[in-house]
């Protein structure tokens, strides 16, 4: 299988592979290793300054673990980078259609991108 340059870059040198430690970390995972694809996100949400308590919380750091094909690892890494600084919501920082086009993910692998999305939703929805 061929991978485009963006996929290869994220796959070969994922910037945010790993886990976060400390308080206030939200963790969620989806998929299973036995089924071939598993993704976990650790999301740190920024604490508010007292004078900005009315604003929604934003993502200050993300780490991920992924057992899967190069596309899964690359997309999870991209999500972990793009989410920082954005409002912590269940929506991916870029939608699946955009991610699929960016990484030239074949149609038969769409289910794997859904696992990345499910892991993200599980993480941001988890109690900190």
């Amino acid at each position: 299988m061929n991978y485009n340059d963006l996929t290869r870059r994220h796959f070969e040198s994922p910037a945010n592979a790993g886990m976060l430690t400390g308080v206030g970390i939200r963790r969620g995972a989806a998929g299973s290793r036995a089924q071939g694809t598993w993704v976990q996100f650790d999301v740190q949400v920024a604490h508010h300054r007292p004078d900005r308590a009315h604003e929604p919380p934003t993502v200050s750091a993300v780490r991920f673990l992924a057992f899967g094909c190069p596309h899964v690892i690359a997309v999870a890494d991209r999500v972990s980078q793009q989410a920082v600084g954005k409002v912590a919501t269940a929506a991916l920082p870029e939608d699946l259609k955009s991610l699929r086009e960016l990484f030239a993910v074949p149609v038969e692998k769409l289910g794997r991108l859904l696992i990345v999305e499910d892991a993200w939703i599980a993480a941001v929805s988890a109690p900190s």
Partner: protein
Amino acid sequence: MSTPAYLDYAATTPVDPRVAALMAECLTQDGVFGNPGSVSHDYGDAAGARVEAARGQVAAAVGAAAADVIWTSGATEANNLALFGTAHHTLAPRGHIVTARTEHKAVLDPCRELERRGWRVTYLKPGRTGILDPAQVAQALAADTVLVSVMHVNNEIGTIQDIAAIARICESHGTARLHVDAAQSMGKCALNFDGMGIDLMSLSAHKAYGPKGVGALVIAHRRGVRLQAMQYGGGQERNLRSGTLATHQVVGMGAAFALAAAAGHDESRRIAQLRDRLWAGLEALGGVLRNGDPAHSVSHLLNVSFADVEGESLLAAVRPYIAVSTGSACTSADREPSYVLRALGRDERLAESSLRFSLGRFSTDADIDVALSAVTRAVQRLRRVAGCATAPAA
């Protein structure tokens, strides 16, 4: 980046330059370009003499009579001719065939087609190391069994079957002929058609430093083995395989087999040392399983499953550095886990995360260094990204 180290000799081998030089002599006007079937002039006679010399070389290399060697386009055609030719030659409209789940698709797919036509096929399940117990064959034989088809060397895991023992069982049965797919055997282990008591044997040139597009079916005519032809027109090859012979191809196969026979144990010993060094380095990673039976295996092949690593990512990570296979080359396009490893009991994940390293005549210590470096980096990185920490072997 430099060219990846080639470690896929079980898929195909480069043509030995000595073989290529002899083939080139049979192509152009100043060479032996005649039709070997033309008996009315010297050009044909010269080509015919080259073809017969090559037939003798192949026969000598595999312990057969020259008259028993029938040229084909490769081992796949030879397997098809053995299976369909045997089935169609029997007077009964259908019968029974015994084979193994770990055979090459060039045997399994013809068997499935024969099943579609009403034949019964028993697919034996080898033990966890890939070795068939000859007693399994004995138990599977029925009154209407006409053929047992068992490969000599498995193309994915390198295990060597006890062909002589299986041949004795077929012999005592009476009507069951033994067909052996020996595409991976030449130059890798002892192969003796007559001595092992084989009735039909498929050979391939391109697995032994010969050209693609040529192979042979060896037929024990003296033992009364008869086949129905699969193609007609010209009556070449004892009416079993019509068509003008490709002189340069068969000359290449003859030369390649002669060289392989001459190289013998020295080449195997050198390759075994490289393979053992590769295995020692991989084993140190931990979470690494060797597939097959090291005690009954050819020297050039090493099949390894890596725990806690996803198969597609593993191949993608090592591909810039080494050329290896996941399962057989014929099935790697459809990305299915190796059916051979699944038949041996490996789970789907381990079957997917297996790499087949196959070494050859031109493999070097430097190739092994590259492979060890690439696989070590890939496995450690992918395990780290997956959050899996498999401890190295103590």
